[in-house]
């Protein structure tokens, strides 16, 4: 038979152990939740070199979620940045330097918008109709990334928004091209591809200034 004091000590020990266990479990849950929403402070992605010397850089990152906190990890950041860079190199700079689109342009779009991007919207999305220019100078704003998580916190959409300004010499005088691109990416077969876009462009020459906007990616029913 245990003495009353020993029994009381056992009970106290049990209570302390139980309490500690409860605190540990609660802390573990809090840590798990906080870690799940780890924010957007990922590693700085590497630049992709291009012939015109214009390298896009990632700026502000903001992620919203329909469920638990979501985050854009560094590989997704890099993938989206690479595709945005491909767009700048192959759709904007290559036509101005070589007079034609580079083939990788079409590959950044998903099947839903590719036809429109390479068809009806090609004149607005690219500089293929501008023709070759000399003395190209190009600058870009930092790429803002907005992410959207689904009900489970899984990242399902990433929008890359950036501006590109090009100045050059054309046959009729100086040419200025200002672009604001919002490319929305979604995963498709393990790649992040453009599933929607909204791109505005203003082209100015001594003779005229023309502006155009192209949008795609509104198919709602499937």
């Amino acid at each position, binding site marked *: 038979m245990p003495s009353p004091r020993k029994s009381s000590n056992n009970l106290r020990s049990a209570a302390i152990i139980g309490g500690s266990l409860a605190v540990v479990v609660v802390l573990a849950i809090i840590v798990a*939740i906080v870690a799940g929403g780890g924010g957007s402070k990922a590693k700085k992605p590497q630049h992709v070199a291009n012939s015109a010397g214009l390298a896009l850089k990632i700026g502000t990152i903001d992620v919203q979620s329909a469920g*638990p906190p979501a985050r854009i990890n560094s590989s997704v950041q890099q993938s989206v940045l690479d595709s945005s860079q491909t767009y700048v190199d192959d759709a904007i700079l290559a036509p101005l330097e070589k007079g034609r689109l580079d083939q990788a342009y079409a590959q950044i779009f998903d099947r839903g918008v590719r036809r429109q991007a390479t068809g009806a919207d090609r004149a607005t999305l690219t500089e293929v109709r501008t023709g070759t220019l000399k003395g190209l100078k190009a600058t870009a704003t930092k790429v803002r990334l907005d992410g*959207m998580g*689904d009900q*489970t916190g899984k990242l399902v*959409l990433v929008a890359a928004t950036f501006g590109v300004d090009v100045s050059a010499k054309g046959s009729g005088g100086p040419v200025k091209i200002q672009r604001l691109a919002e490319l929305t990416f979604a995963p498709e077969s393990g790649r992040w591809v453009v599933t929607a876009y909204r791109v505005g462009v203003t082209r100015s020459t001594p003779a005229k200034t023309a502006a155009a906007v192209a*949008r795609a990616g509104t198919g*709602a029913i*499937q």
Partner: protein
Amino acid sequence: MKLAIKPRRGNRTKRTTKQRVKRAVLACAAFVVVVVVGVAALGAAWLHGYKVPLTTGATYLRVEKLAGGSRADASTGPTSPFFILLIGNDSRPGVGGSRGDALHLVGVNPKKHKATMLDIPRDTCWYGDKINSANATGGAPAQAEAVGGLVGVNVSYAVDVDFDGFTSMIDAVGGFTLNVPFEMHDADSGAFFHPGVQHMTGDLALRFSRDRHDFPQSDIIRTNNQGLVILAGIRQMQQSASNAAGQFHLITLLYQHAQLMNLGVTDLYRLGRLVQDIPVGNIRNVTIPVGGGNCLSLGGDAPGFFADFRDDAILESH
């Protein structure tokens, strides 16, 4: 004898104290276990995407993707015309009811960047009964079937909101601006407005939407007024979600305050972009042609009117 009894009393007292301590410890432990398990379960549910009331806020409306409409539209592709039914039901705390008192069928034509909203008076006759009773018997799917049957289209989405949800939702976005078209003085609905542009809270918008005694055409004008509120709401939504960040924010709000059935984030994003690409000026607000009576019969030109609407989701010759 007394000496023998005293220790027994002492033992009993000690045993009772010990039992009380034991019970207290057990009760505390049980409480802690319940709290821990509860928190863990809620955390796990939240991490797995289930709605946890404390983390997701109040539910203001329900959005449902309907099977019939989806099937019909899948064959014609994602840019084909489709139809959304907006339902304002009359369910109120303490009053009950869930009839579809406000019915608006929106036809969207993505290629033409145009839409037409058909305002359907709640008293419109459908198989001998008022059409709004379908919502009470079979919810949004039944209401969509009735309205779709009346017009001759497959409804792809249904948005259902009650009085409370309607006012809370409008207040949550800070209200909206509405151009009230005429003088309104109706004690029943509480609608007292002078004509002109004014800011609407949820409560004022509900009063405006419910007034029918100010007009000789009663429910027909009321239905059209509800359409004006919806157009103002779309305009507000377009302003606050003009880029991806705004659209993502709106989706997040929807997930916090809407019960979404068969709809994913990508669906909502594409729908949002679609709405964004249709200027409010390209959305017509038209009440369907109806005759008279308590149970409103369809007007004589209804067949041609509906045919014009269902071919491409927009009214052109009416």
